[in-house]
């Protein structure tokens, strides 16, 4: 869910994995096979996508989908069996050292730094390893420490810090070399909410203000939805979706509603005539039900059906999918309905996200709990509702 003040509204990333004019990362037909012959295991198969400079892209997928292998091939840490990887305009296979002049990566979270060294000693070390003279980048290190809220810990050995602080140190060290492209594997894993938000805020700031390109993998869909411009979803080693987050969620949006109305004879049949009724309970003369409509216009039919049966509409909610629902949809064992180049929505399964709906006399509006996303246009109703 998006919603904080640092969300990516208005990001400039191209949608749908279009190749922008300035790609910072290009994966082209990447394939990785471990082992030979009958024992060969295909970890990644024909993965292609691009990431533009200043874009934040999430690489998602269930365990074993090939996320880490893909990222490591992009970094040259794992050699690809086929395909090419280009980072900052440099071919990873032929000129790794030049790639590493532009790249920082946090692949092991807090383990990426030396716990026996102090925070500043770590920053100096990783700046030096990254080709910078620590003396010349001290100001940048101060800025990083300040941005991540760990300035007062600068001289403390990392082992004495909390997990969240260690993770922040790892991120700071990743950025200590002034990287243009940053790869982050599960950057918020194990962090408390506050630390996670700090990290997310810094990532968005880096992309927006410093034009740093960020490629991150995470199982935390809330983080991805908040931070990423675009997601590349992998399943069984292949790309199953490459879309802007908003577009992807919209494509999977359903016309599903949850209503609470006064129960009247014949109401259920009337509602069933407008769409698929997925649950129906009656309690204290109130009928509570969930209905999936075929299209937006059917909502008018639903409202008419309620009225014509003399029922009062007490409240309704639209049920929109979030990224997690889309992710589950695309990566579940069931045949996914979305394709890499043309995702399609399916309406046969209810989704879990419940955007509260308030109604007024004019037009129902979706009040996303974090206030940044609205549902597709919802037909007007004059029914009263909960506020």
């Amino acid at each position, binding site marked *: 869910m998006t919603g904080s003040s640092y969300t990516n509204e208005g990001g400039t990333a191209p949608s749908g994995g279009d190749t922008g004019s300035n790609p910072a990362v290009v994966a082209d037909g990447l394939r*990785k096979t*471990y082992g030979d012959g009958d024992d060969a295991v295909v970890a990644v198969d024909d993965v292609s996508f691009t990431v533009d400079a200043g874009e934040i892209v999430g690489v998602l997928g269930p365990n074993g989908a090939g996320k880490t*292998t893909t990222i*490591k091939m992009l*970094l*040259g*840490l*794992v*050699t690809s069996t086929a395909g090419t990887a280009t980072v900052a305009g440099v071919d990873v296979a032929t000129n*790794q*050292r*030049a790639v*590493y*002049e532009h*790249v920082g*990566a946090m*692949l*092991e979270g807090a*383990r*990426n*730094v*030396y*716990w*026996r*060294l102090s925070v500043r*000693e770590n920053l*100096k*070390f*990783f700046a*030096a*390893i*990254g*080709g910078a*003279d*620590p003396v010349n980048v001290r100001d940048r290190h101060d800025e990083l420490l300040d941005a991540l809220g760990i300035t007062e810990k600068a001289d403390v*050995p990392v082992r004495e810090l909390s997990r969240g602080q260690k993770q922040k140190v790892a991120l700071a*060290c990743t950025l200590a070399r002034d990287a243009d492209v940053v790869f982050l594997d599960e950057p918020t894993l194990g962090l408390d909410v506050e630390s996670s938000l700090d990290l997310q805020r810094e990532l968005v700031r880096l992309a927006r203000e410093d034009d740093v390109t960020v490629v991150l993998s995470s199982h935390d869909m809330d983080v991805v939805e908040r931070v990423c411009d675009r997601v590349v979803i992998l399943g069984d080693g292949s790309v199953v979706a490459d879309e802007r987050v908003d577009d992807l969620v919209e494509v999977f949006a359903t016309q599903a509603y949850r209503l609470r109305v006064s129960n009247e004879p014949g109401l259920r049949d009337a509602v069933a005539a407008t769409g698929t009724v997925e649950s129906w309970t009656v309690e204290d003369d109130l009928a509570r039900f969930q209905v999936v409509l075929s299209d937006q216009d059917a909502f008018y039919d639903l409202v008419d059906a309620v009225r014509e049966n003399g029922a009062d509409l007490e409240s309704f909610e639209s049920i929109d999918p979030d990224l997690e629902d889309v992710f589950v949809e695309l990566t579940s064992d069931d045949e996914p309905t979305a394709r890499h180049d043309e995702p399609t929505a399916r309406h046969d399964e209810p989704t879990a996200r419940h955007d509260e709906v308030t109604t007024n006399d004019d037009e129902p509006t979706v009040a996303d709990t974090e206030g940044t996303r609205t549902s597709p246009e919802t037909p007007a109703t004059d029914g009263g509702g909960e506020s």
Partner: protein
Amino acid sequence: MSYRVLLEALARKRVVILKEYPVNTLTQLAVTYLFFAGIFFGGKAVAGPAITDSLPGIIVGFFVWTMAITAFAGAARSIMQEAQWGTLEQLYMSPYGFERVMAVNAVVRLLESFAWGGVILAAMLATTRQTLSLDVLTVVPLVVLTVASALGIGFVFAGLALVYKRIENLFGLFNFGLLFLIAAPVDEYPALAALPLTQGSALLQRAMTDGVALWNLPAIELAILVATAVGYAAVGMVAFRVAEARARRDGLLGQY
């Protein structure tokens, strides 16, 4: 990019880690010293004053062994430690290049070996009340060339560590193998000079016990020393590169 900056960074990190593990650091020194003391006092009890004749050779042998182990085991242990800590891939992603980072790291270990070798040497000389010729212009080049071949073997083991990670027992075994190389009778069996450490150890014995200066050592023997130093260092780097390619192919760099 500056190799001075890289050397400083790796050296500073090493010093901090040594200070952070004082018991471990002191134990290493103590074990080496106690090993020598056991031989010295045990030999004195058994052989009496006769051991005095061979003491200079034993001291030089221990001195070389201490430095060779520090350099050889340091290279392999670095890989294992970095893999365990989760920092190996970070070192790999240096624009200097992984081999260069590890080579500079080897220089740090070489410098460290001088420190430990010096401490052990001083302790041995104090214990035995012996004196040796310590002409810096002779000893330092000979030690560097001698230890270089051990470093080469260290890189072979570092490569094995990249792929197999846990090889402590293997190089623990080789640590004692180094003793035999250091004591190898090169004068009697010249072919042994082709092995790592052997030629350097023999030349150091002459330089430190007999006071022979570097420029007075036979040119052919110095040439063999240089050739074995360069040769084993090169073999080590090639083996390391092969292992690195294998580790990348099999996705083993980040494993521990």
